[in-house]
């Protein structure tokens, strides 16, 4: 058992989380879950940014992560508002049922 | 002694004291409320109801935990656990005093569980996650009152977190640190020799506004009157904990009081100077023994009166008088002759005194104010509290920037 793990392990963890996010995005039917899968992907990217920041001994990666968080917050606000509206108009959350712009 | 052993011992002590305090804060609340309403409050169990908390604990533990059939079991059970766990965790980054140093043993430890240099952020983070306990509890109960309570509380807690965060930032700007200990230490000293350099008294009147915003938002964050909409009994039966009994109920109950203590402790550190005394050192040291001695004198004086409301009082009053007298005398001795213990106990006394003062404020307001309507509550935070907090923060930032 090594006492410390290399940065590449963090990157692999990030890739795994990202892949799971993609899987969730592709295989789930509930809009909210799909949306959460996107958040999972963003988180995975954040992890890789922070890991690279560690590797290069720079703070810039943290800043990028910070911006990702801000954008995610904005996205969540608008996205959830859209979901609420969609649900109000069609009373369904299944993403396959929302395939046409018109009702 | 290795760090880990000391940490475990400290954690045990803090947990024991905290849990006892929780129970007794509740006793105090019932007593104070009763007196506000011209009642006597808990009276039967123990002298003046002093053993009431113990009785309550025993009752809650031994009661049957009713598990309604229609609930989502996993979340139903997890919610109160989450609530109380998160509430207890946040106390771990709050320092209670300077440090305990025993020169004879060469032993020295700061009086807190951990000193994180982003302490205030940790507390914010934990309180942010704390919403889930209530929201999940309300949702998992599968009951419309509970659901409404949960929805209300999550909306309310998110909304009031904004002004609270803004109010927190302005003392941080002045102190230029995020660590709770550094925050408390930065408030040492006095203006003109008598006005304490607490943040409350700096940049008059900006920090007083910030303090008020923080306290108001704190009331809302802990779901206390006048913001106790999530558990408004005349509308929602008991809100999010309608379906809970026994330990589940106890969990929410403990979480509420624990959060109250945390908020008061944070307010103390942010605005009221932490453990800094209210007037300069040599005299302020004698306040603690003086209070105990006065309490002892009061009790003994009462025991000499002939009119007693209760037969046991003629034994308990003098007994407590003697105990308090002894404590007072002991403190006096410590202050005068044991400097290392004085260094530990006097700051602790000031900190606890301030926290209890704030807790009394919470209880007092519960006894006097009516409840908000829900729309008023939301309008109040978004249209009044938040803008005021924003302006306050901008003004503070401007002053701080110009000052440097």
């Amino acid at each position, binding site marked *: 058992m090594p006492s410390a793990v290399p940065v590449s392990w963090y990157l692999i963890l990030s890739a795994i989380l990202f892949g799971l996010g993609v899987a969730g995005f592709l295989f789930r039917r509930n809009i909210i879950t799909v949306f959460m899968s996107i958040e999972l992907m963003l988180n995975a990217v954040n992890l890789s940014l922070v890991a690279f920041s560690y590797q290069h001994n720079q703070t810039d990666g943290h800043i990028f992560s910070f911006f990702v968080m801000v954008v995610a917050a904005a996205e969540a606000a608008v996205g959830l508002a859209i979901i609420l509206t969609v649900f109000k108009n069609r009373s369904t959350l299944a993403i396959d049922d929302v*395939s046409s712009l018109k009702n | 002694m290795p760090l880990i052993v000391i940490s475990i011992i400290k954690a045990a002590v803090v947990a024991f004291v905290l849990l006892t305090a929780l129970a007794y804060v509740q006793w105090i609340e019932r007593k104070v409320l009763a007196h506000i309403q011209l009642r006597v409050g808990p009276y039967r169990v123990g002298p003046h109801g002093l053993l009431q908390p113990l009785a309550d604990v025993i009752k809650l533990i031994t009661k049957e935990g009713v598990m309604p059939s229609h609930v989502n079991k996993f979340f139903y059970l997890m919610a109160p656990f989450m609530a109380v766990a998160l509430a207890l965790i946040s106390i771990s980054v709050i320092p209670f005093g300077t440090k305990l140093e025993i020169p004879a043993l060469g032993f020295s430890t700061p009086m807190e569980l951990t000193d994180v240099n982003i302490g205030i952020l940790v507390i914010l983070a934990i309180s942010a996650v704390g919403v889930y306990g209530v929201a999940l509890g309300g949702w998992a109960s599968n009951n419309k009152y509970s659901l409404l309570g949960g929805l209300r509380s999550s909306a309310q807690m998110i909304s009031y977190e904004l002004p609270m965060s803004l109010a927190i930032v302005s003392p941080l700007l002045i102190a230029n640190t995020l660590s709770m200990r550094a925050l408390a230490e930065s408030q040492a000293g006095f203006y003109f020799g008598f006005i304490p350099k607490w943040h409350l008294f700096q940049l008059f009147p900006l920090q007083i506004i910030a303090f008020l915003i923080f306290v108001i938002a704190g009331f809302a964050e802990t779901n206390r009157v006048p913001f106790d909409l999530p558990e408004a009994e005349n509308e929602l039966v008991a809100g999010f904990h309608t379906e809970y009994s026994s330990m589940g109920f106890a969990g929410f109950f403990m979480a509420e009081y624990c959060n109250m203590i945390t908020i008061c402790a944070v307010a103390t550190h942010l605005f009221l100077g932490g453990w800094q005394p209210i007037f300069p050192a040599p005299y302020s040291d004698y306040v603690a023994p003086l209070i105990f001695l006065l309490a002892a004198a009061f009790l003994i004086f009462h025991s000499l009166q002939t009119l007693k409301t209760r037969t046991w009082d003629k034994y308990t009053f003098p007994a407590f008088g003697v105990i308090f007298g002894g404590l007072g005398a002991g403190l006096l001795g410590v202050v005068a002759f044991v400097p290392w213990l004085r260094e530990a106990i006097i700051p602790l006394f000031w900190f606890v005194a301030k926290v209890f003062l704030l807790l009394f404020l919470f209880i007092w307001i519960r006894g006097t104010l009516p409840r908000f309507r829900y729309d008023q509550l939301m309008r109040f935070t978004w249209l009044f509290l938040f803008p005021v907090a924003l302006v306050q923060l901008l003004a503070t930032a401007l002053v701080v920037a110009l000052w440097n």
Partner: protein
Amino acid sequence: MEHASQQLWLIPLLPLLGFLINGLFGRRFPNLLVGLIAVGTVFGSFLWVVKSLQALGALEHAHVEHYYTWLESGNLNIGVDLMIDRLTAVMLLVVTGIGTLIHIYATGYMSHEGGFYRFFAYLNLFMFFMLTLVLGANYLMVFVGWEGVGLCSYLLIGFYTLKKSAGDAAKKAFIVNRIGDFGFTLAMFLMFVHFGSFDFKTVFDKVAPMAVEQTAGPLTWIALLLFVGAAGKSAQIPLYVWLPDAMEGPTPVSALIHAATMVTAGVYMVARSSVIFLRAPEAMDVVAVVGLATAVMAATIGLAQNDIKKVFAYSTVSQLGYMFLACGVGAFSAGIYHVVTHAFFKALLFLGAGSVIHALEGEQDMRHMGGLMSKIPITFAVLACAWVAIAGVPPFAGFYSKDEILLAAHHHHPWMYWVGVATAAMTAFYVSRAMFMTFFGKYRGHHHPHESPFVMWGPLAVLAVLSLAGGWYFKIPHFLEPLFPLAEGAHDETLVYISVAAGAAGIGLAWLFYVASPALPDSIANSLGGLYKLVYNKYFVDEAYNAAIVNPLVNGSRSLLWRVMDAGVIDGAVNGVGSLSRSIGGFVRLFQSGNIRSYAAWVTLGCVAVLVALGMAGGR
């Protein structure tokens, strides 16, 4: 010498402010407030002009103020610059002074019309653009004002939106002006190609050392194209046709825009570009000949018109021709002099005519007037002042400026002088004819004439004084001497007498025809037959334009462009592209299922493909 900034931007900005206030909120204001704002802002800019001129003193050199760099691209650098020199000063005083008077008059004239606030908003906007035109320190600023006044002219001619003829007239004015603007634009392009700047100072400094062009060169082309622009704006042959129709607008508009200020913009522009013109003698000749021809032609048409405003409109065209004649023979100062005096008496004529029309509740046909002298005496009195001024009776305003022009023409080419004199006689004749038909004899109408209110005849009185004394008091050529050296040549007294005599003959003839023996004109008209008809119908110019230009265009558009090009080629191409897109889309549509997850799957596949390619390439 440098003067401190005079905040010249305030001059055009005040009317703009008035426009914004009246345009945005005027509908809710009472008429009194709208009028006060409109008049106040224009009067304010008049005061500011006076104040600035006083502060600037003698104005030996142009005073330029730079505010803001508008365009900067390569070596092109155009600023929002304003400039005052003596020429600008004259124009500014005329525009703001007469503008104020006409605004005051209009508050009375328009008081019973709908859209009161709209009218004043447009009028203020016009003042803004006109002042920009006059104050601009480069051709592009002038062009901005130039286009702006064109727009306002369009809006105001078509002010009576319910009248079809008004709308048609507005469109005509706008379209005819476009032709002129096209010339102006080309002139600016040429200017940029040759001098790399639009700045007056830069351009003129580059032109000044150039030699006089004996054969047509760039300067001649620039000058000619500028003149095309000027001909459009100032209604010269062949672009004059819009101005008589423009009389569809309210009378104050005719007075302000189509007599006193906007139409003189062309003269101003030619005078401003005198440095260029003086080095292009061929262009100068074109200007002089076109001006003279316009003067004669419009005057002859004016002889036979029966609509009082039409008479004055053709008179305006004719007088503008005079001004161009002056510019063409090199007497720019005389041209500007005539601009000023003409502004006085023509504004007065129009406003007086407006007063008459107002008195007769909208009647414009002179055959239904007559004998109004006793019924509306004040109007008659002020119109009489204009009459003597335009007829060239010494020592009133028109005499001085017309005299200067004729003398300069004689110095250039004697035949121009004689044609000018004949025109002067005709001018005197038709104005006298209008006066006699309107005020003398016996009333032939059905309305009950009433005198106009004070707000209307007050400004008229001021203008009357200016018409009488303006020419004698304001020695414009002298004032403009630093810019335009006075033409040399002896002041030949005989020539003056001849022109005065011609004017007197015109008046006398008109008296003979329309007062002494009213039957005479009809018999003459009958005996002249075809010629009279030709003149009466304005030489059939509009019909000729319709036949030669408008109809071929319309028919061509209809048959060739619409049927062949639009329906055949363009629609065919569009439809072809459309059906091609449809067939491609029919295939691509399979991917656009609307199912978000399938989109995501495609995105994922793409990412995987990129990653695989990256892996194959070894990450390099």
